[in-house]
């Protein structure tokens, strides 16, 4: 595992990670965001969220007792791990970059390929992925929460269930509830566009916003609207990142994927264990050939805190990302129709980066590098 840089370690000491950190999103937090979507079958309560955080950080939910959700989604690192691809149990390397939990509640699907429809459903997969937590089933987790006295009490308070009634779905609902509190708008951009503070953005960032909406063409996928901005269209696009790994051998790779699926291997396992299968993108979920190489549009909120970028973490800095789009992505027959060379000037690129840096929410500004 990568050694933690001293600066980050220092931050870990100053940012108190305690139950007091969990709070239901307030009005200020949500400047620039719509209300947090909450499913009818899992109303959001503080009890559930506090319990969810505890579960999120519990390392017992792994085959060797070292991995918790927080291992890849580190609260002190803007809820991601700063690595190109994540490393799970025994340092096993996956194929994909860990997305931040911040504002994940606003996605209509979870994972880079949208293979799970909700935060609840997503939370259960990593526990039983051999590359992540490495458990063979959810039973050990259920065993822990049913026997640990603190958990027994917390589950009763949160869900009104007796220990014998606790299931993995309660665990999932609690974790999802915690994640629904890890939301924030209220960045300099939000204060400028929605809060009426014309001084909130630097002149460079103001110019960058114009590029974002204009020549940069970013806004069509990284959505900004009149009173809120999700910075995602909740859709899937092929930018060509990593596509060259599979482009020449698509028929064989697709056949291999279909074979694994027919043999009962979960998509979750297949895509994280094999680089080539990972590059199939959304195709692995829909089976539609026109979805080859498509990945979910990430929100850009707090993007300055969540390097490296793209589903395989192959772009290290925001400057590299801007250059990548300026060149028109990586050309391939399945390249998204919205991606093309932009002809940005050096000034426009720098301004765009300045704008992206203004998307850091004040709530999470002290996390990350």
């Amino acid at each position, binding site marked *: 595992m990568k050694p933690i840089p001293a600066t980050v370690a220092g931050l870990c000491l100053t940012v108190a990670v305690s139950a007091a950190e969990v709070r239901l999103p307030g009005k200020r937090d949500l400047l620039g965001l719509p209300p947090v979507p909450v499913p009818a079958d899992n109303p959001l309560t503080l009890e559930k969220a506090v319990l969810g955080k505890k579960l999120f950080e519990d390392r017992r939910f792994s085959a060797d007792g070292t991995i918790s959700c927080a291992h890849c989604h580190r609260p002190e690192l803007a809820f991601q791990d700063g690595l190109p691809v994540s490393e799970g149990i025994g340092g096993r390397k996956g194929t994909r970059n860990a997305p931040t939990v911040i504002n994940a509640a606003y996605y209509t699907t979870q994972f880079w390929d949208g293979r799970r429809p909700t935060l609840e459903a997503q939370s259960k997969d990593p526990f039983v992925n051999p590359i992540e937590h490495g458990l063979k089933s959810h039973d050990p987790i259920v065993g822990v929460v049913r026997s640990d006295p603190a958990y027994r009490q917390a589950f009763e308070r949160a869900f009104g269930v007796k220990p014998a009634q606790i299931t993995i779905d309660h665990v999932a609902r609690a974790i999802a509830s915690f994640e629904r509190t890890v939301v924030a708008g209220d960045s300099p951009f939000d204060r400028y566009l929605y809060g009426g503070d014309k001084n909130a953005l630097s002149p460079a960032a103001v110019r960058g916003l114009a590029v974002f909406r204009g020549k940069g063409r970013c806004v069509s996928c990284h959505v900004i609207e009149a009173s809120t901005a999700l910075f995602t269209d909740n859709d899937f696009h092929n930018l060509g990142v990593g596509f060259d790994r599979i482009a020449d051998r698509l028929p064989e790779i697709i056949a291999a994927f279909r074979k694994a699926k027919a043999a009962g291997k979960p998509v979750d396992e297949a895509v994280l264990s094999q680089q080539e299968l990972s590059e199939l993108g959304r195709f692995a979920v829909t089976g*539609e050939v026109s979805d080859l190489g498509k990945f979910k549009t990430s929100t850009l909120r707090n993007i300055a805190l969540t390097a490296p970028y793209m589903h395989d973490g192959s772009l290290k800095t925001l400057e590299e990302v801007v250059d990548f789009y300026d060149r028109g992505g990586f050309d391939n027959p399945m390249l998204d*129709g*919205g991606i093309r060379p932009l002809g940005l000037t050096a000034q426009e690129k720098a301004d765009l980066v300045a704008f992206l840096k203004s998307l850091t929410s004040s709530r999470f500004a002290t996390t990350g590098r």
Partner: protein
Amino acid sequence: MKRRQFLKGMGLAGLGATLPFSLVEISFGMGTKPAEHESFTFAYISDSHLTHLGGTRFTRNFDQGLRKAVMEVNLMEPKPDFVVYGGDLAQLGKREELDHGLELLSALRPPIKWVIGEHDFYLDMGRYWEDKISPLHYSFDHKGVHFVVLNSILTYEDWIARWPTAEERMANMARLDNPHGSPFLVGEAQLRWLQEDLAKYDANVPVVVLSHSPLYKIFKPWNFWTDDAERVQKLLQRFHRVTVLHGHVHQVLYNQIGNITFYAMMATAWPWPYPVSYVQKPNQVPKLTVFMNRADPFHERDGTGWDILDLDSGAITNHYQLWLNENRTVAFDFKLKHPVDLKYQDPDKRIPPQFHY
């Protein structure tokens, strides 16, 4: 041969030509599936409008559409028996454009059947196409189905003669909303050829006509039209199952006229609006059609795509491969005797993006 498959069990076959049309419908079951039929699948790529900019440069947008279609057809499982190229491979009929198109299509694994479009034809009156690509009209049989390919984009001689240069002639046919345009024609020569060609076939043989322009009248201002369409329809009238597949309109469109089912094929290049969106002129857009979703111009492939056609049901089912949209399946309904969209035909099932104005 395959004809026998259809004559078997259809003892009244010989009467088909003489009975009034409605009786033919009932006794030979236009509403029922043919007794024996081998199903097969074929793909349809159309309207790529490759545009030459100079040197080796082409408009990137339209190149991308064709490249994507070729890659997807090659990944089809099961593999199609053949691919139809529906016309308008080039934008201005230039050799550079046609050659570029041939190069991109050379990657296609299944064999190609070619249909010419007006954008391919009017620069040199189809000479390069005929020399290098394909005859302009022809027919072939495949697994018991008789396919006829028509050059339906001819037009009146006096309009052709009007233009001082080939480029002007091409440009005036290329402009869709041209007030100085001229309606498409199949023409006398082809009508005679068609009559002779069809005479060899029994009324029970399924007939599929491939043409670029629609062989019925939708909207004259944009040449969604063939002037002698009724004469073609008349020649097809005696057959029990006729399907016309056409391009040119760059949109989801389907209709039923008598015994003929019409399906429009998608364009890989760009979507056209529906004629209902031009309010200054009346239109005859078939009421049957459930419109495709309105396209977002940011996403260049929105509103474009290609088609997969199969005969599993006994009639042609059109699986519209709509990039960036949910695919649509339009199939022949044997009870209603016309095509229906399998998901959206019921007016209560329509969704907002299907509303064009």
